[in-house]
């Protein structure tokens, strides 16, 4: 009975591995459809070192005090807005070294254009339709999202004392002009063009429109960062050609695939049935790992990240080798197969735990302290170590227990266990 149960479970496991293995690694055109199926692996977001692109480190040019975090956040959303307006929707901007910004943009044809976009914030100006400038960024104290009486979103502007006077003049002139439009420019880009129906006197004003929260938020951010008038120094810039990374991922996949086959062979040769269990667990590890990498949004596969993956494959095998050596020892010293397995897993767990926890600690430190590709490495290593501990300990044990009824009387031989020579 137990035997049948094992066979059924193992067959289902095998089918699941095949199914998920294909889903993870093979892209193919869907039958009767114009769409392609994209493998889970290909959906893992890749860093610009693999995909090609452009990155730059921006250093704000400020006198005296450094920028506060709120200001930097505003600047980030302005830059994001500006980049996505130009079609660079996959750009990422992160803080580096507290005040610097690191911008990564995949797939850039014209690095000069990007540098111009990033280099200068441009001046914030309030103009009328003829182009006369009434207010500049200096006159705006801040801008934020608020609600009007119908509880729809508006952008609230607060002016400085001088700004309020200028704004009163401006609204007076514009409301009496023919098209009643006040244009708000950042650099040479029009970011908003509200209609002014009457003169507005007072320290604040609001821009109404059919805003959803995000649009209102980004307009407020653009205005308030424009009000700050910050320029950036581009202290590092790099264009990475796609050809450099091209083939890296595919070659790494081929190498990893062949590497796994060799590892399976080594495991089978040295540990027989236990090696088989470890090999299947390793396949499950690869599948879970790929899915985890694809699911977590902050994972970005980088060049060093591939090293993290290799290292965690090594560690997954290591854990199993430690366990199997332990089981062999226990059996050699006279235990039954069952208790050798139980004691082996129990004792080996301490070793594996101590060995892996240091790796996890180190990767967390790197994750927190480093930026760019090293962070990618730390994340893949961290996730890989966690998953490998799970598969090497839990999944392998589960599989070995499933194998036992199948091996029956000859289980010691099946698992490659031998008594100590008397």
């Amino acid at each position, binding site marked *: 009975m137990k035997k049948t149960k094992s066979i059924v479970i193992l067959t289902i496991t095998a089918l699941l591995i095949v199914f998920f293995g294909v889903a993870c690694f093979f892209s193919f055109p869907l039958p009767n459809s114009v769409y392609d199926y994209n493998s889970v692996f290909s959906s893992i977001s890749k860093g610009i070192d693999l995909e090609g692109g452009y990155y730059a480190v921006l250093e704000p040019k400020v006198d005296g005090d450094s920028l506060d975090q709120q200001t930097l956040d505003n600047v980030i959303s302005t830059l994001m807005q500006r980049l996505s307006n130009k079609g660079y929707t996959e750009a990422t901007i992160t803080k580096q070294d507290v005040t610097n910004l690191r911008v990564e943009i995949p797939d850039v044809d014209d690095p000069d254009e990007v540098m111009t976009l990033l280099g200068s914030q441009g001046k914030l100006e309030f103009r009328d339709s003829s182009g006369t400038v009434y207010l500049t960024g200096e006159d705006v104290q801040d801008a934020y999202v608020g609600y009007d009486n119908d509880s729809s979103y508006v952008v609230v502007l607060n002016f400085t004392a001088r700004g309020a006077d200028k704004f009163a003049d401006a609204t007076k002139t514009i409301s009496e002009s023919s098209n009643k439009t006040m244009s708000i420019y950042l650099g040479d880009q029009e970011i908003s063009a509200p209609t002014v129906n009457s003169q507005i006197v007072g320290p604040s004003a609001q821009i109404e429109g059919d805003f959803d929260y995000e649009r209102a938020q980004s307009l407020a951010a653009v205005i308030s960062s424009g009000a700050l008038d910050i320029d950036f120094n581009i202290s590092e810039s790099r264009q990475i050609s796609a050809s450099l990374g091209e083939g890296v991922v595919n070659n790494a996949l081929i190498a990893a695939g062949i590497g796994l086959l060799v590892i399976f062979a080594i495991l089978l040769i040295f540990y027989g049935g236990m090696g088989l269990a470890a090999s299947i667990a390793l396949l499950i590890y690869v599948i879970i790992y790929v899915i985890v990498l694809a699911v977590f949004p902050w994972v970005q596969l980088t060049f060093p990240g591939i090293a993290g993956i290799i290292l965690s494959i090594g560690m997954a095998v290591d854990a199993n080798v430690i366990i199997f050596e332990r089981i062999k020892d226990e059996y050699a010293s006279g235990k039954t197969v069952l208790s050798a397995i139980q004691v082996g897993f129990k004792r080996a767990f301490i070793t594996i735990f101590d060995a892996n926890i240091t790796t996890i600690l180190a990767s967390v430190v790197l994750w927190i302290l480093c930026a760019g590709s*090293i962070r990618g490495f730390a994340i893949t290593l961290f996730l890989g170590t966690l998953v490998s501990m799970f598969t090497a300990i839990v999944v392998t044990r589960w599989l070995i227990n499933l194998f036992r009824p199948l091996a029956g009387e000859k289980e010691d031989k099946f698992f490659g266990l031998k008594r100590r020579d008397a």
Partner: protein
Amino acid sequence: MANLSFRDKQFKIVNKFFIFLAVSLVIIVAGVVDILVRGMNIGIEFSAGASIEVTVEDTDGFNDKQFRETFENWLAGDRLDGEKADRKFDVSRNTQVSRASKQITYEFRIGTTVVENGETKDLTAVINDENSENNGKTLLVEYVAKIRDEILPDVRKYLSENESYYKDVDQDDIDVSVAVHTIDNSVMLYTIRTTFIAGAVAILVILAYIIIRFTWISGIAAILALIHDVAIMVACTTFFQIPVNSTFIAAVITIIGYSINATIVIFDKIRELERTPSFDDVSDTDLANKAITSTLTRSILTTLTTLVVILLLALFGTAAIREFALPIIFGLIAGAYSSVLLAGSFWVYLRKLFKQSGKRMKRKASKKSVKTEIESVNQ
């Protein structure tokens, strides 16, 4: 089924400690000498300046040496056809050449100074001119952008005149791409600083963990082994003039993880034997030898499997991958060497040094796990 068991063997590894240490020291000293004589091949991330990456097709009979020299001279002021440029860049740094899938990429590097019309200028200076479209950028950024625009037609011209492969090709159709990378002092210093801080914090955290779980002697021994591995890696990287860049740093960190992992497995065994009554009267040396011997199968197999994957990666990979895989291979071998042949001895000799030899860890009394340990060792 193969059997790789050293269970009944007794290797006297600790007794030959000084031989093993000498081998490592010779390599490390040679590395230091090499660093002083030739220097390391420092990549752009760790030295301010710029790199100009020129990628051309790796056609049959392509004269890569001549191409490299021509364009190094080009940057240094000697343009094609004997023409002289106003700007002479500092090209004293190594040019990196790498090949990938029928393409050859030259990474020409320039420093942060330029001699312009006989006058030396600092390229890190920031342009302060409201009317210039380059306002706020460094001279480096501006000049490198110019290089990019000027070098492209000259590369085409050179290829068309000097490489027979292109004799029937229209100059404008020659496949060439140019990418540039500039880096200021501030970013370089930032990168170096974070790398060292992150490395130091990671090592301290690991040390603290080992001291808590094992003993402080084990902690120091593990860190010594780790320093050994990194030193060997740096030495080999210098021998082969592999560029030191963020990829190399990632390789070093990979090896730190691996080295600690391997060393801990040995110390775990030492800890276990220390708690075993039958080892109470065994000397530190014999105890360490026993621990090393009984984990030897694991050390060999794990190194073997990891090495297989990384060797395959080097074999199948592009030049960039190989640049990355080689330091890891050096580090893996160094890590296996130190964890098997040195770490145990570090432990023995540190205990001698601090007069702790023969001290045994306290046993946890009346715990079930102790019983299984006794059974497993009292064979």
